[in-house]
């Protein structure tokens, strides 16, 4: 007992903050995040970027379950974004315009959407549908990867992501009973705005309600992530990640655990996709590119694989770099220092450069998972011991 308590601090980095300070910082960040919209223009670019960033946080949290907790490298996460967004498009737009003889189907919707043709479901119903669709899709995509390991999983998920993306782009050629499968590059637009009970229907001029909705969704996602990580299932994921053979021989059900990782991780992508479909007011096939999967994966790895707060920070950082820092802030720099060239042409080069720099400087991520940090440290200590023994005659 006593030995354990004295051994505790030796694992800690000298610079590591105490538990109480960390709780304080987290609480302060959450309060600041919740109150942020009160201090900025409700229709401005900043809150727009912040809302999108929160939606990305949700996706990164989902991918973190698959890659960070369960250790299954997924390069096709965009598929779940697509499926979630198309669920929103199918059940909350004019897309099925001939449904019910042109009168439309309306379930628990108020506001302008209640008079329009097409399918119009309540946002909560759509969220549930999106979760169901993406969970099933996640498990289906997971099935062929069960026999595989390491990077082969990455390749199969990449392939599925690309196939879903291709179907989204060319889906307007596929017709079932004279409805197209997707609207292709044209996009399904307009999409119903979120309509919550006791509140007015959201609109695109006042972005604060959107922000708070995304914020609450992220809070729920973070909470669910923590509960999952500390649950029996979460421990099974981590066990599989650390050593598959050992975990299976200890009685961890491999198939069920892996499929649940895919399904759960995918569900977050679905919720975020449905939200973004409504927020961006379009479900456009061009959104679902391979580079988006990589973008979300970069958030997870940059933040720190498996570390929930790390992933939140990584996602916010990358989406702000991509959506705000590069296009809005850096673009003025050449003009100010008297150079005449357009920095927008360099945007993804700068993004790539930042990725390289950040990874080289901090390969373990911004806020590494504690377990990994201990491992890394133990690894280095082990190395030192080896060198000492080598020097001995």
């Amino acid at each position, binding site marked *: 007992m006593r030995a354990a308590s004295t051994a505790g601090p030796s694992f800690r980095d000298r610079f590591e903050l105490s538990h109480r300070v960390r709780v304080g910082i987290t609480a302060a960040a959450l309060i600041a995040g919740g109150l942020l919209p009160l201090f900025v223009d409700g229709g401005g670019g900043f809150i727009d970027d912040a809302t999108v960033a929160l939606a990305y946080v949700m996706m990164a949290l989902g991918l973190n379950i698959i*890659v960070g907790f369960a250790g299954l*490298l997924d390069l096709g996460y965009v598929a779940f974004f697509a499926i979630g967004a198309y669920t929103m498009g199918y059940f909350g737009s004019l897309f099925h315009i001939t449904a019910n003889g042109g009168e439309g189907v309306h379930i628990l919707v108020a506001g302008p959407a209640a008079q329009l043709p097409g399918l119009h479901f309540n946002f909560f119903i759509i969220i549930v549908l999106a979760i169901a669709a993406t969970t099933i899709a996640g498990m289906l995509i997971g099935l*062929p*990867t069960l*026999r*595989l*390991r*390491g*990077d*082969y999983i*990455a*390749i*199969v998920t*990449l*392939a*599925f992501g*690309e*196939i879903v993306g*291709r*179907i989204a*782009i*060319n889906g307007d050629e596929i017709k079932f009973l004279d409805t197209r499968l997707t609207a292709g590059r044209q996009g399904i637009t307009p999409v119903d705005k979120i309509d919550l009970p006791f509140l007015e229907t959201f609109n695109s001029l006042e972005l604060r309600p959107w922000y708070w909705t995304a914020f609450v969704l992220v809070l729920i996602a973070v909470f669910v992530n923590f509960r999952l990580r500390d649950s029996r299932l979460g421990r099974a994921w981590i066990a599989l990640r650390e050593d598959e053979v050992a975990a299976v021989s200890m009685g961890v059900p491999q198939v069920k655990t892996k499929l649940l990782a895919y399904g759960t991780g995918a569900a977050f992508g679905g919720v975020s996709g449905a939200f973004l479909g409504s927020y961006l007011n379009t479900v456009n096939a061009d959104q679902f590119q*391979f580079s988006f999967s*990589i973008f979300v*994966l*970069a958030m997870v*790895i*940059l933040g720190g*694989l498996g570390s929930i707060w790390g992933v939140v920070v990584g996602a916010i950082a990358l989406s702000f770099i991509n959506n705000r820092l590069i296009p809005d802030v850096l673009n003025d720099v050449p003009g100010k220092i008297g150079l005449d060239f357009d920095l927008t*042409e*360099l*945007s*993804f*080069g700068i*993004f*790539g*450069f*930042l*990725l*390289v720099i950040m*990874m*080289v400087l901090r*390969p*373990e991520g911004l806020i590494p998972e504690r377990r*990994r940090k201990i491992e*890394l440290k133990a690894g280095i200590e082990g190395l030192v011991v080896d060198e000492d023994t080598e020097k001995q005659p």
Partner: protein
Amino acid sequence: MAAAGLPASTSGAVSSVRRFLAQNGLIGVLLIMPLAFAFHDLRTEGDLSRLGNNLVDGLSNGSIWALVAIGYTLVYGIVELINFAHGEVFMLGSFVSVSFFSTIGLTVATGIPGLVAGLLLTLLVTMFALGTLNTMIERVAYRPLRNAPKLAPLITAVGFSFILLNVGLLWRGGSQRSIPNLIDSQALLVSIAGVNITRGDLLAIAVTIPLVLGMTIFISRSRLGKAMRATAQDPDAARLMGINVDTTISATFMIGGLLAGAAGLIYALYQTTIWFFQGFTAGLIAFTAAVMGGIGNIRGAVLGGLIIGFIQQLSDNRIGSQWTPAVVFAYLVLIMVFKPSGLLGEQTREAG
């Protein structure tokens, strides 16, 4: 006796069928499309010349993918990294070669001896330039992360892929550029039973075969090649045996870059259009080819490249080019289901 033997023989039959499927299921999957279209052609046109043309075009396209796929497979075999920047290296191969042959004054009007000499020079320069570039990328983006968590280099690879993409965009703009059709790549060379072989096909084969053969001999015979194979098997043991692992890894990236540069030149001459985004799809397709053949396996990468080229050509010609990536990736998933180790078996550390 007979009653006892019967169940055993049926289960023997079942297991032998299963073994047959496990060994040949992949080949069966690969044959679905060619056989279906062969049947279709025989019924509607009465001969197989269309399929034959698809095969020839597919093989010349495939030889480009094969060259790129070798780069992927070598790098994966030795450092277990999906080098996402490799497709962009291939793209820059096209750009460098086009710029170089315009600089030295090769035009459509150049005579044949001058053209051959000029293109050979272009090939050498491009290969050297891209080999150097690939080595430098390794030095900057991957070597500092040698002891980092396994996924960290993946992100720097993606980062470099974006950087190179941007270089391409700045260099030649965002649209497809057509380039002088130096070798008149669609000109008919010979036609055998309705199957047309064009100059472009000849060029692709004539460049690819010597390069692949030379590289195979280099890896199997030379000292450095031996060091590469040793490092791929076990870097620590190789280091203990006195192999300079860092140099060996640099050499691997060098070879990958050389071949990608050659592939870039062939692509430019064969397709006669280049643009900055060509490397992205090419990279994914070539990686698929490497996995299909069995990653880490050079012969597998070549075979995989040729097969993917054929599948792609079939899909372009019959289904529609907008569906080609989906078809190629569907094949990839099927391969992973039937035979995860690829056609010729993988040769990596994890495979043991």
